[in-house]
């Protein structure tokens, strides 16, 4: 197992380097001089030169690149141009809110999606299956800002069960959970829809295998056949989708945080965009990409746990 983890870790290094390179390029293809974009057209040449020096833009592009890679790999992803605080500090302050939201919606997605997907597969082409397919299609067609607004109108404005403003007191767990429910449902519904679809088709494939027939012929109880023999083999595609979905989840969390006025990474990124805080954007992209690489790594490692054949390959 340790060898497998090590191999996977080594394999993710080129990806990480390539992603960092892409981040570096994206931030530098901005048309015009960043110093003038930040300071405005009226800036004096001295002020622009000073800002370029502060941003490290006065050295050759290759030096900038090496410096950027070195800093990123040693954990220094820069300071915000606007607030002057390290990007890590800014992100750290809001991260608990985003983690709350992401984990809650993932749990909701799995708790709803997996059983519904299995249920639909077991009643193939029946009423339950058709309903599950249609609902999951509707679920994944909902842009999260639309479902968020609908939930807000229904449950916060009309029924008044939940608050409209989503900033929770981190120390008060009751308050934290109460303000998490609507945003987590908003994000979790899309996730549940994806997981339902994948679980259904993976279960259908898995239940038609010979070992399922063998297990039934041996007299293994049906419940055990479904949950142990069927689901275990159907779990690889489900894990893949959950892993891939993290990228979508990150994008959707930005929209959810705007709709529910929650603090979090999404609001930080939109704030940085509005204030043209390039160093902050660059740092945020590094964090996002690092997160995605880590999630891909965890997904790969889970494959190894779920399917011993993967480890040998």
């Amino acid at each position, binding site marked *: 197992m340790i060898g497998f983890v090590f191999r996977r870790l080594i394999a993710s290094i*080129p*990806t990480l380097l*390539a*992603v960092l390179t*892409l981040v570096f390029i*994206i*931030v530098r*293809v*901005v*048309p015009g001089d960043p110093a003038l974009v930040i300071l405005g057209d009226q800036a004096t040449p001295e002020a622009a030169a000073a800002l370029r020096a502060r941003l490290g833009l006065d050295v050759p592009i290759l030096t900038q690149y090496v410096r950027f890679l070195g800093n990123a790999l040693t954990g220094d992803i820069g300071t915000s141009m606007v607030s002057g605080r390290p990007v890590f500090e800014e992100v750290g302050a809001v991260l608990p809110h985003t983690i709350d939201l992401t984990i809650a919606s993932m749990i909701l997605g799995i708790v709803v999606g997996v059983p519904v997907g299995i249920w639909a597969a077991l009643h193939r082409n029946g009423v339950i299956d058709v309903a599950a397919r*249609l609902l999951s*299609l*509707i679920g*994944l*067609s*909902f*842009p999260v*800002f*639309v479902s968020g*607004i*609908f939930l*807000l*109108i229904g449950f916060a*404005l009309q029924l008044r069960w939940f608050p409209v403003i989503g900033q929770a007191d981190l120390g008060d767990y009751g308050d934290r959970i109460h303000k998490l429910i609507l945003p987590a449902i908003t994000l979790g519904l899309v996730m549940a829809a994806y997981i339902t679809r994948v679980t259904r088709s993976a279960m259908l494939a898995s239940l038609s295998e010979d070992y399922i027939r063998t297990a039934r012929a041996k007299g293994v109880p049906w419940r055990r056949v479904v949950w142990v023999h069927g689901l275990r083999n159907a779990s690889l595609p489900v894990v893949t989708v959950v892993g891939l979905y993290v*990228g*979508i989840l*990150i*994008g*959707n969390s*930005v*929209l959810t945080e*705007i*709709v529910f006025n929650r603090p979090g990474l999404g609001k930080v*990124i*939109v704030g940085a*965009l509005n204030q043209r805080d390039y160093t902050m*954007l660059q740092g945020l*992209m590094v964090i*996002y*990409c690092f997160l*995605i*690489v880590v999630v*891909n790594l965890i997904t790969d490692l889970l494959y190894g746990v779920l399917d011993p054949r993967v480890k040998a390959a």
Partner: protein
Amino acid sequence: MSATLSQPSPLRRAAQRALANPTTTFGAVIVLLIVLGAVFAPFITPHDPTEQDIISRLQPPSVDYWLGTDQFGRDIFSRLLYGARISLVVSLGAIAVSIVIGGVIGMISGYVGGKFDLIVMQAMDVLLSFPSLILGLIVVALLGPELVNLVIAIALTAIAPFARIARAPTMALKERAFVEAGHALGYSHARIIFLHILPNILSELMVMGSLWMATAVRVEASLSFIGLGVKPPTPTWGGMTRDGFENILDAPWLAIFPGVAILLLVLGLNMVGDGLRDATDPKLRNE
């Protein structure tokens, strides 16, 4: 000769099979109605979409204003039809660009093979690892919220999947006899790729394109909602939802109507895309 020229187009056969499914037909009808509404907007809409009438601002739905008016007294129904144009143009443009660029990258990579293929596909994986909305957000923010930049930003997020879709069948096709015959006749690589391999993978690219259209519509609407869409006063569905959201206490319908419009278009496109994919999937064909 290409393998497809003498037969009816696989895409057409897939479309016929897909339309036998009521869900797909329903989706196609929704999409068709929205497209017709967008194309004939000037003839259907009762008001100018940008005409302001401060006296009748935030009106609920009525005979004069079928879906009510916004905070500037503009007619929501008219703005919805014109807004559909932006959604359709941006998403169609983005998908066309990504099919062309992704398709060419995938075909060349699969055709050349070896180390070149390995490096190109690694690069595509890197592109794929960016969260698409975040990538779109940053690209539009850096380039400026113009229609062309929206197309570029959304296309950028969809190039990698199309490259993957084009590459796999190309690798199989290049071993086939008709490609070998092309080599024997002295055809150039470009001719073999674009005249003989391309027609065989076009239907797969198109099916994938119909599914990605739904994503493109959603991303465009999301960017407009964040404030990075085509600039006002041009109506966009995401922007209209944003306006409605800001007036949610006084006039909740302002956010509901454009929200439903986005949902319907994305749902319709997903239904069509799903149907087409199932119809071209040999494993599902006999279901």
